[in-house]
């Protein structure tokens, strides 16, 4: 192949001196040659660069060489890395990289201090979420090793009401649901969890929750969010499971807040039951338990006649049914779980 290329080069150089007819002839020859190459390598197209094929390629090619040659190659690779450290360009590169990141960070800080950042009308600040997300990602991936199922039940767009079981005091389960959907859903949807009305009076925490896009639990708020086609998460159990013994926790759950049925009926938003297993054990003391989040199939609450919206019996019936569904999802996961810490 390489020799052929050289020949062509030679010919091109030669033709530059000779007459035009000769030139055309050579041109045709080159075109034919190109066609030939194209027919041979028809199906292969250049792949986008990624490290996995490169690694595979190196590994494949390493096997072709003998053992000694392979070692020699590795030795050469090692020394070249060592030599690079004495090279000025390496340090220059490192300097540029550091400088760039520092500049970027300082610009970001400057923008924040001079007030040049955007928040939406609920107070959600995407930059703050990006700032704290590494911590949440660590908790999600490494600490609690969250496993999800049923992500396809979350709609790509449009409103939906996630109804979740809540373990107790700390809203970590809400955070993990939000991160699960943010990381694993194809549309990276933001979940608006509705937090309890005891939070707004606490300094820093209320501000932080608002900046992450969370909203105070309130009928007006929930309806407005659903009308804006947002994904809203409610925890109807509130604090009723806080302070319970672990063995009681899985037995009892009581929806203290039935307003979500009402809101779903009013806005026509489907209810998606969500079960979290593992959060109960990590509630008071954050133990590194294994968490499972299951998203159930969407339930459309039918509003045949407007009477049922204000019918407390109907509302509590729907609420009970959804509670049962979540309980069932919970139990099926619990029956499969062998260990609290390893799943």
């Amino acid at each position, binding site marked *: 192949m390489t020799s052929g290329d050289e020949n062509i080069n030679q010919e091109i150089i030669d033709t530059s001196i000779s007459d035009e007819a000769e030139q055309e002839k050579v041109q045709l020859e080159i075109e034919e040659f190109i066609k030939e190459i194209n027919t041979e390598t028809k199906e292969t197209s250049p792949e986008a660069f990624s490290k996995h094929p490169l690694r595979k390629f190196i590994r494949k090619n390493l096997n072709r060489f003998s053992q000694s040659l392979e070692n020699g190659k590795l030795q050469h690779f090692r020394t070249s890395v060592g030599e690079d450290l004495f090279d000025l360009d390496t340090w220059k590169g490192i300097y540029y990289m550091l400088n760039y990141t520092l500049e970027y960070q300082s610009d970001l800080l400057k923008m*924040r*201090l*001079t*007030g040049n*950042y955007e*928040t939406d*009308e*609920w*107070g959600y*600040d995407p930059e703050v979420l990006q700032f704290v997300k590494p911590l949440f990602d660590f908790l999600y991936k490494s600490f609690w090793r969250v496993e999800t199922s049923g992500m396809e039940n979350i709609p790509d767009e449009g409103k939906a009401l996630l109804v979740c079981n809540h373990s107790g005091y700390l809203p970590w389960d809400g955070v993990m649901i939000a991160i699960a959907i943010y990381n694993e859903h194809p549309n990276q949807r933001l979940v608006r969890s509705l937090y309890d*009305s005891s939070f*707004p*009076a*606490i*300094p*820093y*925490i*209320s*501000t932080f929750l*608002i*900046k992450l896009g969370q*909203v*105070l639990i*309130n*009928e*007006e*708020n929930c309806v*407005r969010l659903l009308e804006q086609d947002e994904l809203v998460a409610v925890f109807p159990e509130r604090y009723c499971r806080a302070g319970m013994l672990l063995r009681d926790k899985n037995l009892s759950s009581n929806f203290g807040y039935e307003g979500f049925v009402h809101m779903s009926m009013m806005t026509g938003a489907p209810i998606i039951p969500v079960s979290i297993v593992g959060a109960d054990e990590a509630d008071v003391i954050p133990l590194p338990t294994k968490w499972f989040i299951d998203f159930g199939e969407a339930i459309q609450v039918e509003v045949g006649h407007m009477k049922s919206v204000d019918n407390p019996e109907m509302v509590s019936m729907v609420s009970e049914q959804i509670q049962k569904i979540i309980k069932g999802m919970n139990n099926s996961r619990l029956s499969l779980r062998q260990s609290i810490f390893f799943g």
Partner: protein
Amino acid sequence: MSKRKVVLVTGISNSWGRAYARKIITGQSNKDQLEYSVIGLDSIPPEEEITGIDFIRADLRNPLMTELLQAEKVDIVCHLAVPDFLRPAGSSSEKYVLGTMKLLGACAEAGVRKFILKSSTMVYGANPYNPSFIPEGNSLKVNRSDSCNRYLVEIESFCNGFKKQIPEMIITILRFANIIGPEANTPITRYLKEPVVPKLMGFNPRMQLIHENDVIDALFYVTENDMPGIFNVGAEGVLPLRKLLALTLKIPIPIFHPFAYWRISSIGEASDSLSKYWPLDPDFLRYSWVGDTTKMRQELRFRPVYTAEEALREFAREQRLRRFTPEARYLEYDEESLRKIIERRRKERERGSSELDLQMEEK
């Protein structure tokens, strides 16, 4: 001439009354046939002369108010004698509440067609249970006994009660968000005009703003169109307090929130708490009190020109400019106002002399 509607503006001497009267006179589409004539009412004369209005010096509690309204055939009453910032400081605030009551009574008796009240979203009070966007139907709350929204709530609840009694009168209540602008003198502008501002540690409420021009536009809009009811009026967008402070280059001093409510003297006045010395009640810097403007957009069909951010940026620009060229600005204004005065006096003299001539001729 008889078709002309008479608008009575109370509180003509404050900046809102002045701006509103000017807007009515200059904002009318047909310049030759004026649709409205304005009567200004206040207990103190206005600082600046407003051309084209009749000024009447009277207190709202005057028992002859009904007679005045009947004699002048007043169609519309725009009640602007509601201060932006009320503290229970003796009789002055009582004057406003009682004055409103008397005025409404007089309006009902004299058969005034429309009553417009300029209010504030402050009447919802700042508390942790507030919805993120408070609808107009929400109950009104007084934050604490010495809170600045106390008298406004009293005025409003009286108006609401009155609405049921006299259904034929059109009562429009506009609840404005934080009014901001280069000329406006409201709690939020006073707060943002100080170089160093107190702030509650760990609290960053969402703030709703509206530009001062939009306030006048909204008042004029409801004067022209009959829109009975209560409406929240706020600009598009809600900004966090921190952004307000950052954009106006303030240095916030965070204060731990229990200290803000401390009573500083138990010897003197009993209710002499520290919160009295804040430009806004600390609660209003702690919790959000943002009105829902859906009704404004859909029913009132009024759209503010400025968005919240534009209004704030304009205010910040003006503040920065004022720091560098204070005297030049005032000189400019002086020149303008002086020119107006000279022209007016010349006209008056001409008119006066012609009248004198007429009188002489008659004699």
